[in-house]
């Protein structure tokens, strides 16, 4: 019931945006819908923690990892909605966007959020695919939001690369249906019924299907080499949309891949998917590590950081054992920190009117709160103490060093290279001599609060996780 309420609330918020032109009403509708989703997600997560699964008829079903990701989406959605209100107001005041544009923005944002909730909770792989496709369709115009040639190019790339990727994923999904005997009345195929019938699958088809699914949904995750759309889209979309992409959509796509992974493992054993995860994981750390050294744009820098973290998560699932638990924790920490960093990148953009790293200098003397939070975010995302990502990385690589020492060592080396690149850019932005024309101004609380609350939350979760969350993480680690 809670789930249907959440989904319909986002839909109603989108409809309100269509029906009225009153900006305040549209803004409040988006915030209220996200707040309701947060409350609903907590209720669902608690139910999953006690009952292991949350079902609404045969169509919707949420397991432990699904519940964790619902929580992530709802937290990021609420902070994004709150941040977007002030961010777009400032962009309107600066004549960056026209007065009527936030209406389109919030309609699409609500549809995007709704599609993500549906992708996580649908119990049928095709419906999940349709929902993931809907996330692409609802966000294409958000990437081209600023109506500039470069934004248009980024959106076109996003649309075509993701369409091809998702069609490949769709083909892979269909191949899993060979688990059912031809002509048999399978009814509504669920993740559970697929798993139950997996033994009927031809192992070679299972392998081919998983490769297609990994490439298809991996495009949405942004695994290298299917990542090409990601830096462009993240770089050109409004900052809060970058936050939604990196912090919410990425875990959703990972969840779908993991669901197929369980089915594949039951047919061909663990080693096959494990090796693929390791290969994609390592590639996804290697490319950002070297790109980080030559990047010129700080939003693209965050995009490459997301690709790297997706790689770390994939490595964790590839190594197995305790690394899976660490990967789940990594998903949580990465989402919260990365959303915060994207909001802060929006603050930089508003103040410096440029996304170029070379144009942002001495921000500590211009926007000090943003700068301090940005440095904290940089430390958190690269795995510096006292943030939880340090622990997750240690756990992942210590698990890997026993079974795959060379991959682990290469991965660690690449992470060090990435840290150096990120550090160089972050220090250049925060310190140094500020431009003469740039004056220190009081920072708007609504542009700070979303980032601050996420950073506080990630710090808290680094030391303490509530019992229900611990239960969900443990159950998810056992299941996946």
């Amino acid at each position: 019931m809670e789930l249907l309420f959440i989904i319909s609330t986002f839909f109603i918020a989108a409809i309100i945006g269509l029906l009225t032109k009153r900006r305040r009403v549209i803004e409040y509708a988006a915030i209220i819908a996200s707040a309701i989703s947060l409350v609903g997600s907590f209720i669902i997560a608690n139910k999953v923690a006690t009952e292991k699964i949350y079902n609404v008829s045969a169509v919707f079903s949420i397991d432990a990892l699904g519940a964790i990701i619902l929580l992530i989406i709802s937290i990021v959605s609420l902070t994004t909605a709150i941040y977007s209100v002030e961010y777009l107001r400032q962009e309107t005041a600066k004549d960056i966007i026209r007065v009527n544009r936030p209406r389109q923005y919030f309609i699409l944002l609500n549809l995007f959020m709704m599609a993500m909730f549906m992708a996580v909770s649908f119990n049928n792989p095709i419906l999940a695919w349709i929902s993931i496709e809907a996330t692409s369709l609802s966000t294409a115009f958000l990437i081209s939001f600023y109506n500039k040639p470069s934004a248009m190019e980024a959106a076109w790339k996003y649309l075509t690369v993701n369409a091809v990727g998702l069609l490949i994923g769709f083909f892979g999904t269909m191949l899993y249906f060979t688990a059912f005997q031809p002509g048999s009345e399978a009814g509504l195929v669920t993740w559970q019924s697929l798993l139950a019938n997996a033994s009927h699958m031809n192992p070679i088809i299972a392998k081919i299907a998983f490769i297609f699914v990994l490439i298809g949904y991996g495009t949405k995750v942004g695994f290298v080499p299917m990542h090409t759309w990601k830096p462009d889209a993240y770089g050109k979309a409004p900052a809060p949309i970058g936050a939604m992409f990196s912090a919410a959509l990425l875990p959703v796509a990972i969840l779908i891949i993991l669901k197929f992974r369980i089915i594949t493992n039951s047919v061909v054993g663990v080693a096959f998917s494990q090796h693929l995860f390791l290969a994609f994981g390592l590639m996804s750390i290697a490319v950002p590590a070297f790109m980080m050294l030559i990047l010129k744009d700080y939003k693209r820098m965050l995009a490459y950081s997301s690709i790297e973290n997706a790689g770390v998560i994939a490595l964790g699932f590839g190594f197995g054992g305790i690394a899976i638990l660490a990967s789940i924790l990594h998903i949580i920490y990465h989402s919260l920190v990365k959303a915060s960093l994207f909001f802060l990148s929006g603050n930089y953009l508003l103040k410096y009117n440029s996304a170029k790293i070379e144009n942002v200098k001495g921000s500590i003397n211009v926007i000090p709160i943003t700068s301090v939070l940005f440095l904290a975010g940089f430390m958190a995302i690269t795995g510096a103490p006292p943030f939880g990502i340090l622990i997750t990385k240690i756990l992942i690589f210590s698990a890997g060093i026993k079974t795959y020492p060379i991959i682990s060592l290469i991965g660690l080396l690449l992470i060090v290279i990435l840290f150096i690149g990120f550090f160089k850019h972050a220090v250049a932005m925060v310190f140094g001599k500020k431009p003469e024309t740039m004056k220190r101004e009081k920072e708007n609380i609504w542009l700070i609060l979303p980032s601050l609350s996420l950073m506080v939350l990630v710090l808290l979760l680094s030391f303490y996780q509530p019992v229900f969350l611990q239960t969900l993480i443990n159950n998810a680690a056992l299941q996946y």
Partner: protein
Amino acid sequence: MSIVTLKILLEIMFLTIVFLHISKKNYDAAIAYGIQSFCVVLILFNSFQETGNILMLFIVLLTLVVKVILAPTFFTRLVRKHDLNISINTYLNISLTLITVVILTAIAHSSKLLPLTTIIPANQTLLALSLSVMLLALFLIVNRQGAILQIIGILSFENAIVAFTVFAGLEQSAALQFGIIFDIVIWITIATTFVSMLYKHFGTLNVTSIKNLKE
């Protein structure tokens, strides 16, 4: 329909995708896509005849409207509106393109892909042909430099997947197929809107000329 008729339909699909590789005019490409989609509609109609499920007839009609009428109309309008009839080059020249087409067709029929083409052994030829169309559609997307033909390539890829799933006995319920077609309608609308916007901003649909984002 007999297996021979179905094979002819798939062969027409195959020929349309080969034509899309060498076509010099976007208008002709839009028509070729319409013909290819009509073959898919007939394949789906055959499936309806076998199952007798009336909801499947609804899906057949919907596919007809969306893929045979609406999509080609969108494309031809776009071509007329911006005077874009001459399609943009391929990355590979015609000879190399055709050689690649032959190689990909051979791969689709090779023993390496037998597990896929023998999902239903009786339909092996049909599945191998569907797989060929799929590979050629993917090649079309990467080989063509024009945005319109890239869209047609993506939609042809989707047509090939539909044909493959029908012959592999993996067809889904009408409700799910409705959801998929609904997604495709939205995708076509958004993609054609973007093509218009790209043309407005860049004055060309040659994707090799759209390079503002080089890092």
